[in-house]
């Protein structure tokens, strides 16, 4: 028997294949295409304290091997989420991770407190890196771009909850290990990387941005090489388990992340193109392990072979 189970802090996953926040809604639509019980974990679309309408359309641009999106955290708000969406998700034997977003530390804390009292949640992922909203921080940089803010936010949330805490990092930083360490020091249980890259596209005929929000977040295979490198960098800098995200469209892609140091992976954009992709990735990982006679996926995590003198 091959063991596919991994642990993200105290969250036990039956396999390392999760779905990324914002690309799987609250699971309802995909339940028509796949058996949600088979997933490692479901990370729901970012939830805010109050419902959000999101940005003006157009909200998406197709780019080479990627997409830019500027949804702007459209969501039903935490109360409706708990009342309606979570009820649906609870019926599955799959870890539910609630991704939360806030504009201030206070908003995050309030959200966490509400979730503390809610059953059926395996963990919390804090989104400190959405490129589609304006933050009240210096230069409008996201929390996740400032190590001090990241540390403080993580610590304050850590104090407010016993739920496993995952911090989702922005790739738009000079040295991601500094941010990762801030999360570790602040008491995070795991890290998700990466969120989308801020990007832009212009309609040259009208000379207007293609997105109403001007900028959007770049996701998809285009960013995969960057994401793998950041996972590897962070894996070598902190002890926390890493959820690898960015352009995963196949089992091979997922395995690259795992070998680089990811304990689990989350699939984002690929869900849009192939609603069955998650199950295909799980099967592919299984076949790979069988072929390579590895009976426990944990042996693969961070197993990248590098000649010593190169480090």
């Amino acid at each position, binding site marked *: 028997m091959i063991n596919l189970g991994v642990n993200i802090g105290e969250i036990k996953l039956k396999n390392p294949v999760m779905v990324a926040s*914002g690309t799987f809604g609250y699971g309802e*639509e*995909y339940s*028509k295409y796949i058996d949600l019980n088979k997933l490692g974990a479901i990370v729901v679309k970012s939830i805010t304290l109050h419902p959000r309408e*999101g940005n003006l*359309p157009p909200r998406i641009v*197709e780019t080479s091997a990627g997409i830019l*999106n500027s949804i702007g955290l459209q969501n039903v708000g935490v109360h409706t989420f708990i009342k309606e969406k979570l009820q649906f998700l609870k019926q599955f034997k799959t870890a539910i991770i609630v991704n939360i977003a806030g504009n201030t530390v206070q908003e995050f804390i309030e959200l966490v407190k509400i979730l503390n009292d809610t059953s059926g949640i395996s963990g919390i992922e804090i989104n400190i890196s959405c490129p589609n909203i304006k933050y009240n921080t210096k230069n409008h940089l996201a929390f996740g771009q400032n190590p001090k803010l990241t540390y403080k936010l993580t610590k304050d949330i850590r104090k407010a909850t016993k739920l496993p805490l995952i911090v989702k990092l922005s790739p738009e930083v000079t040295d991601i290990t500094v941010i990762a360490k801030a999360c570790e020091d602040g008491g995070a249980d795991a890290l998700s990387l990466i969120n989308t890259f801020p990007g832009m596209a212009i309609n040259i005929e009208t000379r207007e941005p293609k997105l109403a929000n001007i900028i959007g977040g770049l996701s998809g*295979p285009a960013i995969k090489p960057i994401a793998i490198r950041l996972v590897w960098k962070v894996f070598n800098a902190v002890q926390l388990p890493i959820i690898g995200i960015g352009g995963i469209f196949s089992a091979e892609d997922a395995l690259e992340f795992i070998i680089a140091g990811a304990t689990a992976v989350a699939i984002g954009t690929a869900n849009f*193109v192939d609603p069955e992709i998650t199950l295909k990735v799980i099967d592919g990982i299984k076949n790979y392990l069988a072929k390579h006679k590895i009976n426990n996926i944990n042996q693969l995590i961070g197993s990248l072979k590098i000649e010593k003198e190169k480090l």
Partner: protein
Amino acid sequence: MMFTTKVLENKEITASLYYLKLQVPDKFNAMPGQFVMLKINDSFDPILRRPFSISGFSKNRIEILYKVIGKGTKLISHKKVGDEVNIIGPLGNNFNIDNSKIPVLIAGGYGVAPLLFLAKNIRKYSKNKKIVFLFGAKSKKDIMLRKEFKKYAITLNVATEIGGTGYKGLITDLLKYLLDNKTLLPEKIKIYACGPEKMIKEISKIASQTNISCEVSLEALMGCGIGVCLTCVCATKFGLYKHICIDGPIFDSTIIKL
């Protein structure tokens, strides 16, 4: 549902407009107004599926009428009989036929696609029902599928921007003309429209001014087509967004804000 199927036919019927026929599984059942998301190939460039209205459906077979616009549709136009394509569908809602009224179908350009299906369907259930079909396009050559319309006993009222056949001018001008001269009576008709945004906007305006019951088919850039990515929003008059892929693509013209 998602399935991989075979191209039965893919031919150019007029300048850069293609008729694609695909095999579909037994379980596949479609209503006029619905659409499919077609995967172009295995490459990541282009990466997204493309939405297309279903323009015809019979057992084990759907038809798509598409215009070559950019990278994606160009690649689709290269597909040959027997080539495989992957489809998600049928998706979205459908036109609501009001049997008490005369259906007035108004198509602009490739907007003819879902309306052709609608017209065929209406004809299927009532052989003698009057169907008014207004078809607007740039020029004569863009008015295609005349044979197909004839087969279903549908008379076309054509408008071309540069003239050459039928009414010379916009299809919306033709509509106004037919309303003005009382050929069409507002309380007796229901409009079903599909075409460029400008046309939809104008028809919605006319419908609201004259109190005509009217359904329109909308388009939006779509990431997923199944209600997840939240990219395909359209503003409504009530301040909330609708998602064109699951709440639409067919909307009552009175609720949307274009």
